[in-house]
Structure formats: structure tokens, C-alpha cells
């Protein structure tokens, strides 16, 4: 559909929230917690904070949570019964306050989970999620969305995108049918189009590198010392992958409780030294430089090659969360500046 533009008064936001809530949908929104700002299920508008650049964790958990129960099982003597995932119990969710970068991450993640075979748990969750984006008025030194094809007011991935205007009111762009359905819940709050321009109310994020060039260089410099040099201070934790909106690597495990249990899917990370280790003890990626190369290569070369999507949307979460300040933007600039081969 073509994007429809409306004005939502600052004072109407809370009432709009109440209408959505009253429709029975689960609303997840950024909440200021003891140490972080993260998406949490909320009941009231005043629980939501707007004081964040991006949340610590990405919005991916709504469809790809850190622990997903794939099915439950019961083991009796020689019999096994499996209770499959009840897809129809997946609730309708509204993700409120998603940043444009986070919303842009939905499409690569979806590309992974629908490649050849559909992961119905993921796709159904995504289908039942409406993303209400809020474009960025602030950015920090870790932001680089504009370098990977996004921008602080990009609509891709959002169903509705709200942009705060200088008046304090919001420009509401209805992008998809799902967004339209939200408007239908409370049409009275969507008023006529404001004349104010959207762009001048957005954060300024300078372009740092050309992401198409990254792919070219990553391929050309696959065998090179640059990975060793960049990965030196990396300590092989999984923080970057776990906060990343597009990282989808996972592990499948069984957990028992007596005779019953469940098969679960857990987040995993290519940075862990045990990630690729064979039972024989052979480890194809035994040193950190190889794992770091895999991370960058996967996002900028493998994903575009195989599923036609880039695995980095420039939110900078990994750089902010990294315990050893592996600033990904800096490294990407470094890669882009390598001589053409």
C-alpha cells in the first residue's frame, strides 16, 4: 500500500496506547529497568520510556526469543509422546517504540528463517506482530544506519512509523495493512497531514563507509592478516550476537524434568570457541580471528550471496554492549579502506 500520513497529537499517544491495549493485544515497549532499557510487556502507557537511543537488546526476541520451546515430550518405558508447538496460542503483539534500524532487521532475520523451509514458529510470531516504529531524534557515536542503507526515519520493516515533530506532536506514517488495522482501532487520533517536513526532525547520522564495498573487500581479503589484527582484543563472548537484531545462530537442546521435558532452541553465537567444535575435538574455527572473520563475512558476504539480505543494519548495539569495545563501525571503516584488489 502507499504510505498514508497523519498527525497524532502528543496528548493522544497515551489514549492510542490504551485503545491498542483494550483490543486485547500484548504490547511490548521500551521500559527503563534497573540497568538497561529493554522491551518488556507493558500494561500502562506510563511504564514506557522514550529516553533511549536504542534498547540494549533488539526487538528480535518477539519472534526469536532467547529460549524457544519447540515441543514437549514425555518418556515412558518404551514409548515417547510429543506435544507439538501450539501455533494458535501465539498472541497478537504490538512492538511499540521500535527504532527504524531494529525494524530494518526484521527482513534479514525473516530471510534466514524462511530460507527453503519455513520456521512456522518464527513466521507466525512475526505475522502476528505489529511494529510501531519511532524514528530517531538522537544518535550516538555507535550509530551507523546510514552506512548500511538505512536512515533514522526509514520506514522499512515498521507497520506504522511515528516521527516526533518540533511541535511535540507526531507524524504517523501508516506503512502496511497491519499498521492500518491499528489506525482503525482509533481513527479519531489520526488527524490530517501536517505540513512539517519529516527530515529536519530526524537525527543526523553521517555516512561512514559504503557497505557494498565491504562485501567486495571481505571477499578479496578473506585470507589476510587484517582479521588477526582486528580480533586481537576480542574475548570470545556472545554479547554482540545476543544483542544483534539479525543474528540468528542457535543451539537445540533437550531439558528434562523427570520423565517430561522439552526440546528448546537457545541463542548461540559464532564467537564462542565451542560453537563449531566437532565431537572428535577438531575445531574448524579454533582461533578468534577466524570467528571474527566469520561474523563479518556472514553479515556482509554470505547473507547477501545466499539470501539476498545484509546482516547488519547499523544499530551499533554490539559496539555499545561489547565488554572490550570491539567497535564494529571502526572495523568496517578499516575494511572499506583496504586497497582494491
Amino acid at each position, binding site marked *: 500500500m502507499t504510505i498514508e500520513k497523519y498527525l497524532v497529537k502528543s496528548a493522544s499517544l497515551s489514549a492510542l496506547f490504551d485503545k491498542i491495549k483494550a483490543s486485547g493485544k500484548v504490547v511490548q515497549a521500551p521500559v527503563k529497568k534497573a*540497568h538497561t532499557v529493554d522491551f518488556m510487556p507493558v500494561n500502562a502507557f506510563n511504564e514506557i520510556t522514550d529516553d533511549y537511543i536504542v534498547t540494549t537488546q533488539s526487538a528480535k526476541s518477539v519472534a526469536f526469543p532467547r529460549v524457544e520451546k519447540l515441543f514437549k515430550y514425555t518418556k515412558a518405558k518404551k514409548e515417547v509422546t510429543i506435544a507439538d508447538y501450539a501455533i494458535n496460542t501465539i498472541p497478537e503483539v504490538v512492538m511499540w517504540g521500535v527504532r527504524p534500524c531494529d525494524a530494518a532487521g526484521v527482513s534479514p532475520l525473516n530471510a534466514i528463517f524462511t530460507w527453503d523451509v519455513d520456521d512456522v514458529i518464527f513466521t507466525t510470531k512475526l505475522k502476528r506482530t505489529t511494529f510501531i516504529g519511532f524514528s530517531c531524534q538522537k544518535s550516538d557515536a555507535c550509530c551507523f544506519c546510514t552506512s548500511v542503507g538505512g536512515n533514522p526515519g526509514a520506514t522499512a520493516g515498521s507497520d506504522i512509523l511515528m516521527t516526533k515533530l518540533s511541535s511535540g506532536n507526531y507524524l504517523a506514517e501508516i506503512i502496511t495493512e497491519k499498521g492500518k488495522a491499528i489506525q482503525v482501532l482509533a481513527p479519531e487520533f489520526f488527524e490530517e497531514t501536517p505540513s512539517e517536513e519529516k527530515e529536519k526532525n530526524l537525527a543526523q547520522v553521517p555516512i561512514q563507509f559504503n557497505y557494498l564495498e565491504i562485501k567486495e573487500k571481505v571477499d578479496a581479503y578473506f585470507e589476510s592478516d587484517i582479521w588477526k589484527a582486528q580480533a586481537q*582484543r576480542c574475548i570470545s*563472548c556472545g554479547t554482540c550476537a545476543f544483542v544483534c537484531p539479525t543474528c540468528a545462530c542457535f543451539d537445540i537442546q533437550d*531439558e528434562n524434568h523427570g520423565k517430561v521435558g522439552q526440546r528448546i532452541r537457545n*541463542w548461540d553465537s559464532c564467537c564462542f570457541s565451542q560453537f563449531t567444535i566437532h565431537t572428535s575435538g577438531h575445531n574448524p574455527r579454533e582461533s578468534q580471528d577466524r570467528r571474527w572473520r566469520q561474523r563479518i563475512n556472514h553479515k556482509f558476504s554470505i547473507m547477501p550471496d545466499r539470501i539476498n539480505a545484509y546482516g547488519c543494519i547499523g544499530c551499533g548495539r554490539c559496539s555499545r554492549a561489547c565488554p*572490550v569495545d570491539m567497535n564494529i563501525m*571502526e572495523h568496517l571503516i578499516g575494511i572499506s579502506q583496504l586497497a582494491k584488489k
Partner: protein
Amino acid sequence: MVDIKKKANELLAANAVQVVIGFEEGTSGKSRAIFAQDAAGVDKLIFNSQCVLNLAVYLTKHEIKKLGKPAIIAPLPVMRAIIQLASEFQIKESEMAVLGVSPEGKLVEFQTFAAIESYLKDFKIAMDEKEKEILAKISNMSLSERFDFWMQELGECFKCYACRAACPMCYCHKCAVEQNKPQWIPVAANNLGNLEWHAMRAMHLAGRCVNCDACHNACPKGIPLNFLTKLMMVDAKEIFGQDGPSLKDGHLLSTFKPNDKENFIR
């Protein structure tokens, strides 16, 4: 800083070491590790209050060992970690140079680990007032309040293992959490999995933690998990008189005294 840089350059120039592990300027005022292998690298070295990472964590990494013999910039927490690592036979005096940094930011040179140990006698591990306050606050909660508190805090954990990766004492090639025959700690970052992981981590650091808070600083979720190991440290001191790392005393939980005191065994 001038004297540290000078010394680092001397060591590199004489090929006494091949790499200097120190801090450089990071993103937005943060600091981060640098592995200086020449004068240009040394020139980037800094030292300030933002230098919270415990650099000793790199001493046991095989990727870093390949760079050659290191000199390490060592503020007090790094010195303590070095002594602890040495007492666990993970590092050798002859295989590194330690460029100590006094609390005033001055270079302190050490020829031996024993010299570091004796230097540390004047700088006993201590918690500051704020930390004491938090510890007391948690300790003074009722049992169920405390349980709820930790379940809430540890519930944040998504098991990225940054705490483990940042801890100089967590050098095991295969962590107990990765043992799966049988599956010892649940892999999932659910309540039980998180509780067992953090309880195990704290116990494995009992008597070994040097109170550097690297684990807490590394945690992307800000979980105060360092207070678990702080408690271990306080108990080790109060019950067994262990006051900081020591080259000779042996590891708290692999030694014993026949007259160790307790009041709960019938």
C-alpha cells in the same frame, strides 16, 4: 604515563618483549586493550580511571601468546590477577614483564612475582563504602526477598558469558557449563539455568576472585553478579583469613586446616 611509555619502548627496542599489553583510547571516552608491537603502538597507550578491563585476561589466551613475550601494564587489579594466575601455575615470571602502575599512576617495575606480592601488601583488597552498602542491603533482606531479588537480577542474564570471558580466572578451555555428559548446567537462559550457572561460577571463583569487577563491567545487562564473588571474598577473609591472592598459601578450596571452624555440622 611518560615513564611507562618510555619503558615500553625500551623493552620493545631491546626485543626483551615483543608486545606490550595496555590500554588505548576507545569509543566515546571508553578505554580498551591495545597490543602494541612498535613505537607507534606504544604512542597510543593511555591510562586513566576508565581503564577498568582486567588486562590479565589476555595472558592466558592462545591467540595473544602467539604474539610473543608480553609486557603488561598492570594497575592493582591486574597485579592481583597475575599473582593469582601464577599461584595456579597458569603464567610464569620468566615469560612476561610486568609494568606496574601505582594508584597515583606512576610506573612501578617488578623483577619477580614475589616483588609484586610484597608490593600488594600495602594495597589490601577492600570494598568501598558503596559496595559495602549494597552487600549489606542484600544480606539484610529476608530470605524470600533475597531469593526474589536474585531471581529478578539473574533473570536478566541471556548467557552471553561475557562475565566468564572477561574474568582473568576463567581460563578453562572447556568450562564446566559446557560439560554435557551428563548435561551439568542447563544450557537455556531460563531461571534455573541462570541460577545454576551463576552459583557455579561464584563457587568456582571462591578464594580466587581478586575483586576487579571485570565480570560486572562486562555484563551487557548490568547484573550485579560481582556481588556473588564479593561475598565469596568476604567469607574467605572472615572465615579462613585469606586476604588477597598469595603465591604460597594455595587455593582456598584445595587446601584445608584440621581445625577449620563451622557451626552447622551435626
